[in-house]
């Protein structure tokens, strides 16, 4: 995750989902924002997109506190990421 070069979209998604998995699949939005190294606007866009694509779920408890968790599809993405990355690199896509 530590890198100086600009991350592409796929890497950002991978980092985003990896952080959630690292925190036992439950993390509040604020630390997720900090750890993902994104601006708050881009963070919101990514969170919305990933929720829309059913990679993550945003759960809210009775106190109104939100946590972000991975769905099965999110886990599947993490599992397949290296393979997909390798495919993109191999085929120069």
């Amino acid at each position: 995750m530590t890198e100086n070069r600009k991350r592409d979209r796929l890497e950002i998604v991978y980092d985003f989902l990896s952080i959630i998995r690292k925190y036992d699949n439950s993390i509040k939005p604020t630390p997720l924002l900090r750890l993902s190294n994104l601006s708050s606007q881009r963070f919101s866009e990514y969170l919305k997109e990933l929720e829309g694509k059913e990679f993550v779920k945003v759960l809210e408890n009775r106190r109104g506190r939100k946590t972000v968790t991975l769905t099965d599809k999110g886990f599947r993405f993490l599992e397949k990421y290296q393979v997909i990355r390798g495919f993109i690199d191999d085929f120069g896509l």
Partner: protein
Amino acid sequence: MATGIIVGRPFTGIFWGLEAVHSALIALICFLIVLKTREAQQLSAHEGIRYFRRTFLFFGLASLLKLLIRHLALSFFVYPGLLAVADWVVALGVTGIIYAHTMAAFCLLYSIAWKDRGTQPWVLHLLALGVALIITFTNAAALYIAFQIFMIAYSAGVIHSLGKVKRGRSSQMLVIYELLLVFWMVNLLDTLIPVSPAWQVIMYLASFGIFVAILLKVWRRLGVKTT
């Protein structure tokens, strides 16, 4: 109408069968590549993978249509009553083949150069359809050849320039793309010029080998387990 472009070669016994088998196998390989890359596309929503899949979808469709049209053309001789509609059916098929082939070429280019080119997909469809209709309905075989040569030269230029930028593992794949261009040329020759049977067999084997190499590369990279 440019029906002679695709069905111009005489129907000669074993080579008719050979061509049918070749077209069917190429279509099958293309559709296997499309299926095999489905999950990678669904999970990543990567533009390069999207265009890569479309390349093989259109190559597959072109092969399938070629097979179908040649088969239909043969049935016109068996059932002379169908000759009244033969021209239109074949023209429609030829339009479809040129369209699919042109789209495959566009998608191949976009799969490797999508970051630098912002054209909307519908522009490509419109362009490919326009080219297909013009060539079919003006019966401009020369125009078809000129367009294909232009596309091959342009693609070769793009692939060559990318080869200079993208080194390492991906440059191996650029060789495969260059081979695909060779297939394209082989296909062009096969479509337009009635060549000797031996040469025809070599061309079929060469193009088949290129597609198998790509399929194996996809298979190895994405794993044997299907989605």
